[in-house]
């Protein structure tokens, strides 16, 4: 998953690496970006769910670092010993930990890789939760195109992403939305450091 060609700010990011996965995941979203799915090329005639590229086995360090990374010091999320003694019996994930799982599982080459598009903007999100994620679970995702629309000169793309554990229990579901560059040429402009949005 890691790439050799690193952006110049990688060393700044690397100062925060704490977990095993941090060292495995490439910080370079430009890699393979020319091949990311593009707004005007997504095939909406095929709405079949596909598997994500990777699975995510949850460790305590993954949960505690997510909370730290969003500046949340809630002891149920950051203090494993405290959480174990509570009625939860273990760490409680910050609800937005689904973000971490999705970026990990989508990967670089498969469907849904458009969430990594340089220049993409986040207009808002929708997430449903069915069960808390737990340390030790191995999460996989299934995703499919959900909607694609134009609004006030912006191009929105949505995928439905379902998150399951190793027993195929549905843990959470999201409708991931981004405003994207419309064409592959627009993405190429962004890769060259030129604004690739029309609005």
């Amino acid at each position, binding site marked *: 998953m890691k790439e050799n060609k690193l*952006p110049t*700010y990688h060393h700044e990011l690397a100062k925060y690496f704490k977990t095993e996965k941090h060292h495995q995941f490439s910080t370079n979203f430009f890699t393979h970006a020319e091949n990311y799915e593009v707004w005007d090329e997504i095939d909406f005639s095929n709405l079949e769910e596909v598997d994500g590229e990777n699975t995510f086995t949850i460790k305590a360090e993954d949960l505690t670092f997510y909370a730290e990374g969003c500046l949340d010091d809630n002891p149920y999320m950051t203090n494993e010993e405290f959480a174990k003694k509570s009625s939860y019996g273990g760490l409680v994930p910050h609800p937005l930990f689904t973000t*971490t799982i999705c970026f990990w599982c989508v990967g670089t080459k498969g469907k849904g890789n458009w969430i990594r598009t*340089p220049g993409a903007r986040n207009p808002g999100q929708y997430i*449903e*939760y069915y069960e808390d994620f737990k340390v030790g679970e191995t999460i996989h995702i299934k995703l499919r195109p959900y909607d694609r629309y134009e609004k006030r000169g912006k191009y929105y793309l949505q995928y439905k992403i379902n998150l399951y554990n190793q027993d195929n229990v549905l843990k959470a579901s999201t409708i991931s939305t981004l405003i994207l560059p419309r064409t592959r040429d627009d993405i190429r402009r962004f890769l060259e450091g030129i*604004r690739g949005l029309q609005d």
Partner: protein
Amino acid sequence: MEMISFESVKTGTVLPPVVHTVNQETFWKNAVASFDYNPVHNDPEWVKTAMPFKIPKTVGHGMMTMSFMTSVVTNWAVPAMLRIRKITSKFTKPVEQEWTITCTGVISEKHYITTGKNFVVIDVKAENQNKELVALEQVEVVFPD
């Protein structure tokens, strides 16, 4: 654990705010936490010309702001063993470095369904130091009792 019963909850109740001042280090740490390494949040050089948000500087992750807003709810709900069921968010303004983001939440709706399925809706908003709205969120919280 401070248990909260559905009966005791009143609409209009304001939850304690969550306040954070953010900078590039905050964006980088959030990127590492979320694996969202989009250069618009992380690359001060690229964004000078690429300007996805029409400004020549990095901006915070929308999911960072959404996390801040959600923490208003989890600070209240998690110790009481209440379950978050659904979150809907909308981002209205990109968050810039050195901004102070204040997230406030109010219990806006109380849904009487049946034991174990009763829930409340909490409206959360995030504003910068100039009281400009940067994001909105609605969170559904289910009561076990």
